[in-house]
């Protein structure tokens, strides 16, 4: 094949490369960073209007790409060399608007970049732009965005999941090589499941939260959303590790996840399957079936599979919503219109008093789900209710954590549904309903317990042809077991890597 022909072939096939393959093409100068960025920008141009996944393009992207191309020798050993990445809009980016999906930060430009962004760039990645999301990461449908819903690339009548819905849809539609999401109660894993991606919520403390707009500080973790397991391992490796600017970040050493990543020899490995009956809700038959499929696979590879009872599971959703809304009510108090962000024009009348200044600005600036959660959290923390709600929830949270620690003294891995079903239609599960909160039933526990968890594509629904992922949960700081087992599932079940045909 001639060089020209080879290049043409590579570019036609760019969507099928793993990240480390892309970096090696760039290293060999078979592909320039600028070409790769242009490739994704063209796709954004072509597909974003129908998906609404991307909110802002980095205005300096091509210049940055050119700079890397020009000084390739200097950068060529970087693990994410030239990889164009889209970020959920909660990651502050110096010079690029950061909205958190909210009107209240509609025109906010941060004077500094998040630590995750700094580390991605240090690893050679280029920030392509920012993704749509549920406002302040509150939601699981991406319908709660001030910039409109995101549509699932697999079927535009369906949601992509949330809150990292834009980040998920963008990767699935090939608008970037990979994206970053955040996961407070399932916001990386659930949209990953809905869009046929690998999504990781690392152990709490693995990744710095500095510069990540907070929803619920004790639960928030950033995580990659990628087309395959190896890509997630590579990105997570680049962003993990102690950051002096985040007191809750861990000093634990970061393993070479990608290098150590091999489809697990699981012979005699004890794997627990979460007893789904103990949740307050039930899963769709396709979800049950996907888990059976995984169970059969793991058993056939010699794993010792058992059902695991977590009787306190039915407490997870209420505990999650008490703690997350309490923290959110405080975290979102800073959006008051005094220093930055949206401020009401008070219909050109001067507000009579300070309370009016605040309430009018916040009433107009926040969406309804955010307001609902602020009110809920404010109530939970109020004097006379604190013990009954916030305090009680914190106590149960500790019990949940202890329970999981006990489980992991016996099992290497726990397998659970990601969500109750495949992606749901835009009309279903309106915000604020109990049903909409119960969607998080199987994901919130990992956040409450601080455990690492991963969503990996398992199969497609025979009913609506939408993807279904399964969730892998491991003990604290044991992301390696997640990657290795997920790689086995990737290789054996072969759902990973598939894209909607019209987008290929």
């Amino acid at each position, binding site marked *: 094949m001639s060089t020209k022909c080879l290049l043409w072939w590579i570019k036609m096939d760019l969507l099928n490369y793993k990240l480390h393959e892309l970096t090696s093409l760039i290293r060999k100068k078979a592909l320039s960073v600028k070409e790769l960025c242009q490739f994704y920008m063209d796709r954004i141009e072509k597909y974003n209007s129908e998906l609404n996944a991307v909110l802002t393009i980095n205005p300096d992207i091509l210049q940055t790409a050119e700079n890397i191309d020009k000084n390739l020798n200097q950068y060529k050993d970087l693990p994410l060399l030239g990889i164009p990445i889209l970020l959920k809009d909660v990651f502050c980016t110096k010079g690029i608007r950061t909205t958190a999906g909210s009107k209240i930060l509609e025109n906010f430009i941060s004077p500094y970049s998040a630590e995750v962004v700094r580390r991605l760039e240090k690893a050679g990645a280029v920030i392509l732009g920012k993704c749509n999301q549920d406002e302040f990461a509150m939601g699981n449908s991406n319908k709660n965005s001030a910039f409109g819903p995101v549509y699932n690339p697999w079927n535009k009548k369906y949601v992509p999941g949330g809150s990292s819905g834009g980040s998920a849809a963008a990767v699935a539609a090939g608008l970037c090589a990979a994206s970053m999401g955040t996961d407070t109660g399932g916001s990386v894993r659930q949209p990953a499941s809905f869009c046929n991606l690998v999504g990781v919520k690392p152990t709490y403390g693995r990744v710095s939260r500095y510069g990540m707009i907070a929803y619920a500080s004790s639960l928030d973790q950033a995580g990659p959303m990628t087309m395959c397991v190896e890509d997630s391992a590579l990105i997570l490796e680049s962003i993990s590790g102690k950051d002096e600017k985040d007191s809750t970040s861990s000093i634990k050493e970061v393993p070479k996840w990608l290098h150590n990543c091999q489809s697990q020899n699981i012979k005699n490995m004890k794997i627990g399957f979460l007893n789904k009956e103990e949740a307050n809700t039930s899963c769709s038959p396709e979800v049950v079936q996907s888990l059976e499929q995984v169970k059969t696979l793991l058993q056939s590879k010699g794993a010792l599979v058992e059902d695991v009872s977590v009787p306190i599971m039915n407490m997870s959703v209420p505990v999650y919503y008490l703690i997350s809304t309490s923290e959110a009510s*405080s975290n979102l108090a*800073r959006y008051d219109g005094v220093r930055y962000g949206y401020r009401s024009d008070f219909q050109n009348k001067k507000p009579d008093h300070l309370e009016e200044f605040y309430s009018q600005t916040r009433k107009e600036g926040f969406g309804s789900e955010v307001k609902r959660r602020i009110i809920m959290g404010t109530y939970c923390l109020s004097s006379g209710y604190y013990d009954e709600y916030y305090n009680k929830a914190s106590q149960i949270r500790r019990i949940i954590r202890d329970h999981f620690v006990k489980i992991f003294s016996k099992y290497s891995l726990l397998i659970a549904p990601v969500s109750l079903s495949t992606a749901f239609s835009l009309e279903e599960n309106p915000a604020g309903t109990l049903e909409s909160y119960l969607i998080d039933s199987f994901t919130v526990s990992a956040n409450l317990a601080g455990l690492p968890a991963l969503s990996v594509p398992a199969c497609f629904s025979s009913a609506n042809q939408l993807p279904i992922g399964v969730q892998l949960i491991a003990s604290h700081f044991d992301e390696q077991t997640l990657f290795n087992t997920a790689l086995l599932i990737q290789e054996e079940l072969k759902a990973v890597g598939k894209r909607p045909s019209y987008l290929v």
Partner: protein
Amino acid sequence: MEQNSQHANLRSEWKTVIGLEIHAQLLTKSKLFSPDPSHFVEKENEHIHFISLGLPGTLPVLNQKVLEYSTQVGLALNCHINGRSVFARKNYFYPDLPKGYQISQYEQPICENGYIEFECKGKRKKVRIQRVHIEEDAGRFHHRGHCSLVNFNRAGVPLVEIVSMPDMNSPAEAAEMVRSIRKILKYMKVCDGNLEEGSLRCDCNVSVQKISDNKLGTRTELKNLNSFKFIEKAIEYEVNRQIHILNEGHKVIQETRLYDSTKNKTFSLRSKEEASDYRYFPDPDLLPVSLSKQWIEEQRKQIPESFLQKADRFQKEYGLSPKESFLITEERSRADYFEKMLKTKASAQLSANWLINEVLARFNENRMDIDNCPVTPEQLGEMIKMIERKEISGKIGKKVFSEMWNTKKNPVEIIKKLGLKKISDPNILSSMVEEIINKFPKQVADYKNGKEKIFGFFIGEVMKISKGQADPEALNKMVKEKLNS
């Protein structure tokens, strides 16, 4: 008249109960949770790191120096230091509060259960300290005509809040308590203690109760007390107001009141019902603070001797009077100055006299601080030693001291330059005395006839011709000898 005595009678049935909350800014280089400087700066919004402004995504990181300082404060106030303490968020909206919450400590403060002792009107008073906790300061909200402006330089400056038990029973005791706390903090060099500028602030909880009653009365909280005088006056006013209300058969409302120093009155700021529900909860951005016993002991070693210990020691070791020792230990810099004088081996009593009568007197005149005294303690000590060795008289000493103050030169140099050395050479003295005796034969005759009062006249005349340099003791002896011979 009758009304007055009735009022006094009613007044004597009541007991005043006062508790204090004292906020002290710590003298750390950077702020409590962010790297920008914490010292005062004239220009607005100069020290405003992203963290101080509460920008989206920012996180607090605890300044370790604050842990050291606040632990030392707790230890100096005889507190128990909690091995584990927790930062909590105090939630309320105000334009000077960037995050919409203040990071403070609530259920688990760093220090608890201490006490402080001080002298008030000659009696030793002990006040229990309920807790000492760490928190961040807010910015400043200014109203300028039709607009309001915020300055965030102060936002995030570290504070310790010292909360006392309601153990004080008079305005004087309350003021003395604040003075003592201020002295302790300044001694430790953790706070500059400036009430007017607000680096030390004090809120007073005041209530009155019948002397026969054991139950505390309803309290009011007084704010905006930025001098010792105002603390006393505001409490005095508030006590009278409450007694008046209760005597009329009404009830005191629990509320926060602001002191207006120009009117010498307190005004209601907000009642308990209007007070915010602060919705305290542990700050999830900060880990609980763990302090080992060993670390706490290390902090104990950093604490300097307290002013009370120092005053006691000065009395015992140097034989100073209580009044002298309290004057000298009032400020740590004074005490340090005093002890540096003693290092030259100058006598303690003379050093104390000179420090109090000359140095401190001059400071009162010039509104200066001993830290920028032009005369070093070593120079003053040397001069005092010369007086002790009778090389110069006390009177000459004052002249030398003035010269030292003005020129910053050493005493030896000055004495040499001005020729002020004391004359005790018997030959020189003898010739001077002869000269005077010969000059005033009438007075000599008077003296010899029994008019002994005139003795001083001869001394004065010799002093005159010696330009004050004659050694008075030797001179006395010689004049007596010559007149009696």
